[in-house]
């Protein structure tokens, strides 16, 4: 692994750790405090600082060091983690984030930004280091004094970015290095030396009151790449007890002997202490490439299957069918690799709600559920911005000011909820608030005033509420810097539509509003149900298909009877303006989209096929009823139907696409 790859790993891990820090800080602020959270925050800061040192990110290391020192005081109970300190640490997280992004190539933050934060951190440090502080007096005696550390990096350690000099510098920062003895027993003559291999070992005596845990943390990043022994030295003990540890041979691979017989030594050998990693980081581009190839594989297998069918060779048909089955499993596994829990995205909103509530002067809680619901990584990345807008909107316009809430008999603290669940092959993300609800009459009046609707027309609630997604539509009485400018909701809908998703609003006056965003689980490959109309083949996502029934011709109405219930239907032939005469026997495919159920009348049912979604060119971006295309085994193109927009069509039998 070269330094560039190591840097990328560091950047990825640091971003994750900063998210983790932020989440724990917000938990603490919400009163869900625990020592574990404080320890996790400390360790995250420590890890970022330590890894940053490997890349000589001096500013990052220095700033994070001060943050870490304050966190250390919190950890040992010398400093209370109150709301002000949480706010300060959140601001520090932001600054560390900027420094990390600077390492990734973004413009470096102005060093002056750090000064006020450092000044505030210093106040906490000095306050607890006052002479009357109790922390040092209470420090456990067992953790003070002289420590003997035997540190022998593995031969490959330097290639993995380990720096023994940095380790020594960190140890020195903890106290006094009473003695460092560099063992060169294993160092070969120059002619045999491999320049990037580590041949040195270190016997160290460190005097510090920092305690074992702090010493061990210095080795946190090198532990897997070294033999390490940390033991306290009992001063005044017999000469035998103080005898230095036997030097391990550089190349024998065996860990050094245990530290003394009193069992106080810590054997932190990689083989002993390493916890096998259960996950690996994979570059997203590699995954995308694999998904693309699996897509091509599916198309190729469909082609082979078709040829095998034509050949009439039973053995060939059997083998291609077996290959197809395996490819389906590969497809499922490959797509599973890209599935991520939405909890990661949701957790960001704790910070958004915290900051926006502060800005608005409102007391608002965020309640999150369904964090374990999974969806494709490419979808999750694109949904964060629209969700942010919807959450901000709910806080700004949904939740009433405290006085209004009090007057309505509601708790002063407003609640915004984020929920996610799977439904009919989609993921549904709900953003709800317990605010005043949308003002139906006001929206209607505004829409009539702007000429968006005919005043004579009667609209359902959902149709009225959907007007807020019209460009430039806003009923807000005052414009804030958060929302109310009528810019954004149309962009939200456009972004969601671009993901083949839909958005609906339900609202009750005085009770609140729920916005439901429905998105496909994946943008790459789906199980499709092929239907034929004339010579055209269309594909329905299998997840929306409920059943297929025979269509009784002769109906002139736009609905039929499904086991005693009314089933509206649309004819695909007329919807897409396809010429020709329908066959004597047609079928209805019953599809479900959210709460709606509808029938789609087709000529033929062609069955279930894996469908690789190919995006439509921007030329077709305005075409309703179609969400993508796919290439069939025969090489022909089939259109993938967008059931949501088909069902939303005001005039079911009007042509959707020319």
């Amino acid at each position, binding site marked *: 692994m070269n*330094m560039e790859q190591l840097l990328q790993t560091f950047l990825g891990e640091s971003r994750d750790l900063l998210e983790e820090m932020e989440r724990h800080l917000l938990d603490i602020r919400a009163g869900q405090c625990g020592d574990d959270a404080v320890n996790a925050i400390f360790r995250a800061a420590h890890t970022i600082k330590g890894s940053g040192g490997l890349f000589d990110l001096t500013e990052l290391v220095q700033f994070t060091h001060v943050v870490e020192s304050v966190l250390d005081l919190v950890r040992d109970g010398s400093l209370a983690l109150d709301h002000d300190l949480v706010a300060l640490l959140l601001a520090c997280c932001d600054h560390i984030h900027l420094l990390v992004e600077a390492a990734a190539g973004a413009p470096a933050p102005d060093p002056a930004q750090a000064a006020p934060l450092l000044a505030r951190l210093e106040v906490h440090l000095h306050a607890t280091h006052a002479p009357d502080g109790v922390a040092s007096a209470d420090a456990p005696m067992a953790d003070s004094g002289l420590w003997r550390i035997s540190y022998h990096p593995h031969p490959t350690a330097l290639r993995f970015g380990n720096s023994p000099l940095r380790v020594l510098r960190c140890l*020195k920062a903890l106290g006094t290095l009473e*003695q460092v003895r560099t063992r*060169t027993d294993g160092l070969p003559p*120059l*002619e045999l030396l491999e320049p*990037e291999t580590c041949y040195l070992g270190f016997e160290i005596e460190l005097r510090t009151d920092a305690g074992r845990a702090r010493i061990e943390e210095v080795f946190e990043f090198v532990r897997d790449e070294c033999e390490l022994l940390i033991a306290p030295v009992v001063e005044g003990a017999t000469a035998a007890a103080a005898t230095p540890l036997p*030097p391990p041979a550089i190349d024998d691979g065996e860990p050094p002997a245990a530290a003394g017989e009193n069992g106080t030594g810590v054997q932190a050998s990689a083989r002993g202490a390493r916890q096998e990693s259960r996950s690996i980081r994979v570059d997203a581009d590699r995954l995308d490439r694999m998904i693309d190839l699996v897509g091509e594989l599916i198309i190729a297998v469909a082609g082979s299957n078709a040829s095998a069918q034509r050949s009439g060779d039973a053995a060939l048909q059997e083998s291609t069918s077996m290959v197809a089955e395996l490819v389906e499993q590969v497809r499922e596994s490959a797509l599973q690799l890209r599935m991520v829990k939405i909890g990661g995205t949701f957790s960001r909103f704790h910070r958004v709600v915290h900051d926006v509530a502060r800005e608005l002067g409102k007391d608002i809680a965020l309640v999150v559920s369904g964090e374990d619901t999974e969806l494709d990584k490419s979808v999750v990345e694109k949904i964060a911005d629209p969700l942010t807008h919807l959450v901000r909107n709910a806080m700004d316009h949904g939740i009433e000011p405290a006085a209004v809430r009090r007057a309505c008999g509601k708790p002063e603290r407003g609640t915004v909820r984020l929920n996610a669940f799977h439904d009919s092959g989609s993921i549904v993300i709900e953003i709800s608030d317990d605010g005043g609800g949308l003002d139906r009459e006001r929206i209607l009046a505004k829409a009539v005033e702007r000429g968006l609707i005919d005043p004579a027309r009667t609209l359902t609630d959902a149709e009225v509420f959907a007007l807020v997604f019209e460009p430039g539509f806003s009923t807000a009485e005052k414009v804030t810097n958060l929302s109310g400018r009528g810019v954004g909701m149309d962009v939200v809908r456009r972004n969601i539509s671009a993901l083949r998703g839909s958005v609906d609003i339900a609202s009750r006056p005085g009770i609140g509003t729920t916005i439901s965003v429905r998105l496909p689980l994946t943008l790459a490959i789906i199980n499709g149900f092929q239907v034929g109309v004339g010579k055209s083949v269309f594909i329905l996502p299998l997840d929306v298909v409920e059943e297929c029934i025979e269509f009784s011709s002769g109906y002139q109405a736009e609905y039929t009877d499904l086991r005693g219930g009314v089933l509206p239907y649309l004819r695909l032939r007329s919807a897409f303006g396809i010429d020709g005469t329908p066959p004597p026997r047609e079928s209805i495919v019953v599809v479900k989209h959210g709460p709606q159920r509808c029938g789609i009348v087709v000529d033929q049912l062609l069955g279930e096929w894996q469908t690789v979604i190919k995006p439509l060119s921007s030329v077709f971006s305005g075409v309703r009823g179609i969400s993508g295309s796919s290439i069939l085994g025969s090489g022909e193109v089939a259109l993938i139907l967008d059931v949501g927009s088909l069902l939303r069509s005001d005039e079911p039998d009007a042509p959707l696409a020319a």
Partner: protein
Amino acid sequence: MNCPARTRSADDAPPLEIALSGGMTIEHAADQARRLRAALTHSGPVQLDLGEVIAIDVTGVQLLLATTRSLASHAWPVTLHGVPPAVEHAFALLGIDLDVVSSPAPNVAEAGSPR
């Protein structure tokens, strides 16, 4: 000093000067090793000019120690010139006396000094 059986005078050959520059760090370790190995083909004392060295890590320390050790086995002395603070600090941190590098002792490992 652990001298080999044969005896030579430092006047036998003029000292070979090797000037090292840049980082004596893992990124440049292979290049620096190549430069230092030139000393092995020279029969005579070696002077290492470290004046242009801007950084050093353990790979650089190992190279200097190994060079000294290899030449010591032929009884050729090594002298260091222009030792920059970065190198001084690294050796000080590791508890290795720079004089020991210039005048090699048989077992540097035991040459640790109190910090």
